[in-house]
């Protein structure tokens, strides 16, 4: 866990974006939201985040591509990127881990599950 508790939540679905933000804020995070991959990249260039929760199926830049570009842009800095997705099959998890995500948070999420993951980071 870094000292900086700035988190970026990226999801095109407003409800799910809000849920993740709400939960993180409950856990004491400062959260900025983005509704697309491009927006996330723009924000990431302006701010310093230690955590990104990234939806996968989004219009425009996909979650994986966004992850790749974030990793490229933030190279050398500690950044935890969690996949925040409704893709629940085991092969999806493997694919995402391979794409550079630190872990996968499968929808529907619970506070307990989120806390466990954040603990592991």
């Amino acid at each position: 866990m870094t000292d900086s508790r700035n988190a970026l939540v990226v999801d095109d679905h407003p409800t799910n974006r809000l849920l993740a933000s709400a939960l993180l804020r409950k856990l004491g995070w400062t959260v900025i939201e983005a509704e697309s991959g491009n927006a996330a990249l723009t924000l990431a260039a302006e701010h310093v985040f230690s955590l990104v929760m990234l939806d996968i199926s989004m219009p425009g830049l996909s979650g994986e591509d966004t992850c790749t570009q974030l990793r490229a842009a933030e190279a050398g800095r500690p950044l935890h990127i969690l996949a925040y997705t409704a893709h629940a099959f085991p092969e999806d998890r493997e694919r995402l881990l391979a794409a550079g995500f630190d872990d996968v948070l499968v929808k529907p999420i619970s506070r307990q599950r989120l806390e466990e993951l954040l603990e592991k980071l």
Partner: protein
Amino acid sequence: MGGIRGKLIGIFVLIKVVPLLLLAGFAWYATSQLGADVSTKAGSMADAMLSTIKSVGQTVTDDSIRALDQRSREAIESLTTNAAKEIADFLHDRDADIRQAASLEPSEAAFRRFLSQRSRPIYQHGPWKLAADGRSWEPEQPVKREARITRPVLADNAKDFHTRPPEYFGESEQRPLFVEMTFVDLDGNEKIKVTTGQLTEKSRKNVVDRRNTFVKAETYFPELKKLKAGEIYVSDVIGAYVPTQAIGPYLPAALEKAGKPFKPEESAYAGTENPVGKRFRGIVRWAMPVVRGGQTVGYVTLALDHDHIRQFSDRLMPTDERYTPIADAIKGNYAFIWDYKSRSISHPRDYFIVGYDPQTGLPTTPWLDADLYAEWQASGKPSHEFLAGIPSFRDQSLKLKPAKEQVKAGTVGLDCRYLNFSPQCDGWNALTEHGGSGSFVIYFSGLWKLTTAAAIPYHTGQYGKSPQGFGFVTIGANVDEFHKAATETAAKINLLVEEKDANLTIQRGELLDHIAESLTATGIGLWTSTLLMVAVVIAIAIWMAGLLTRRITAMISGIHAFQEGDRKHRLEVDSADEMGELSRSFNRMADSVEESFKRLEEAKEKAEEASRQKSAFLATMSHELRTPLNGILGFAELLGNELDNPEQRGYVEIIEQSGGHLLNLVNEILDLAKIESGEMRFARVAFPLTELLIEIATVHRVTAETKGLKFETILADELPAEFITDPTRLRQILNNLLSNAVKFTDAGSVVFSVSRIDGDIAFAIRDTGPGIPPESRETIFEKFKQLENFLTREHGGTGLGLALVRQLADHMGGRVTLESEIGVGSTFTVYLPLDISHD
């Protein structure tokens, strides 16, 4: 490919070469047989020909010999009868002489005149001498005879023109017929006696006394007294016997061997055997009463010189020589005369002519066989007395032996009546005793002799007593001489046969060689051509098999290409035959297969597309369901934490429960769908089994104990440290069953026991729930077949759990069993196979 090729060649060779070889073999066998037959037949033909030639030769020879023998016999018989007749004629002429003499006025002058008017030539050989080597006699001056022809032989007469020189009987000497002419008075006194030559006494005597007669042997006077007027008396041949010192050629060696001095002049004359010997001299006396005025006043007698009679036989030669001045007895060709008592009165060997002892006037003992001689000796009688009591021709046989004593003594006159070792005597008598003639062949004195006999038809006086007349002439002839020509021909034939035999043998050899050569040539030709044909057939077979199999090989490689994926490959159809049809059929099949493949691939693509779409659908559905559930469950939880009013919190919990149920439903539906579409992938990883089991048991223990149930976990000792299967799915199965057990049990306990049974790990979950009725024990494993009284609503089940458990267990190589009793409880057991290699 070599198989079909080999078989084709084999079949071809079998159906072509074997008959060819059989044919060749048969031909060779037949040819060999033919050769052997021809050889055999040629051999037997040659043998038969030779045998025929020999047989013909023999037959011809035999026939010739027989014909010649018959011809000769006929000639000699004829000669014999002619001689007999001539003798008879001669004797009859003497009858005429005596009649004329009887008519004469008895006076010496008249008698002298009478005698001088009667003479005949006597033919005799000239002087002979012992040859220089002393082994034969030879004439001092050999007589040369020559057939002269002083004119050309006409062509018409040229065939078998045969001429003979003038016949030569010997040196001629005109000799008076009679040696003596007498007139005897009625008292036997010789009143007139005229003699010629020196044979008889010149003084007149009384002939009553035998001692006053010729060789003191004449006894004619008593016979004269019996004569009537006109009757003629003819005496026997009377002469002194001339002994010999040797039988056969009288030569110094023979005499020396006999231990006698060589005095040929003192021994009997014997023709060529002793041409200088002493001659037998004899007479035959004719007599007739001299009647004057009806009264017999005396008797006139005429003593015939016996030499004149001998002339008829001594000069005869029963060969092509016809006549001879000197007989050659040793050769067996000679004539001789026997008198009416079968006594020899003419013979080339003078010692064989019977005669009288001039001292006693008694007959000299004739030659007897050894037995008769011994018999005579034993009798002690004079021979003439002894022989008078012996039957004539007694048991004559060639087996009897002549008396050697007589040979030694040299007295061997032949009296056929007692010459018993000479059976021809009996034969001659058989032929002539009734006046006839004839012949037979007898082996005698080492020669096969034809011997003829002819009665002398002279029956005057005492000779009229028997049809045999005066006696008989016999001629002996060496049979071999007759058929000399035939035997010479036979010898020639035999020579020819031998030549022919040799020729035939050579020809036969040549023929056999030729046959053998021909057979060899045929064999070589036959087998060479057969082998050539076999070679050609095999070559054709190989070529044809190659031709056939080349196409088949091409076809097979084409098929292989097709089989290995070149589905565009087609066979070349280059002929209209079965192979072409096969290619066409294959091509049609290939078209069809290609079409099928195309359709299959299309179908497969469609199926894959469908599967992809299904997977995409499942993923999308899962994604789309989870997205709103995230909001529902997440905000419900947040809301629950915010609310203080318990009633409101209860509502939020209901939202959370419903959302959770929906999430379960979504998860299980997706799992089943993935299993059924074959998209679920099962991992095979080794993991620590006990650890997993305890972790699972802990979760459910909490739930069970919260519910007031007893939860027991029994893990067997023999469980392996690591188990290989998909741990996620195993966890899913056990969670499902354990949560069901806890869920459906209101009181009592849940027992989770894991043990090893045979090759399986058995996971058994026993509860003390209500139990499952038998009729439902199978259906509960089907989708949405949860029991009525355990509705989802009450227990939060999806109705898909057991279906998923069974499906998972099946796909992991295991199975699920259920034992249950209503009101007691249920036991679900999952068996999964133990991977022995990781035990």
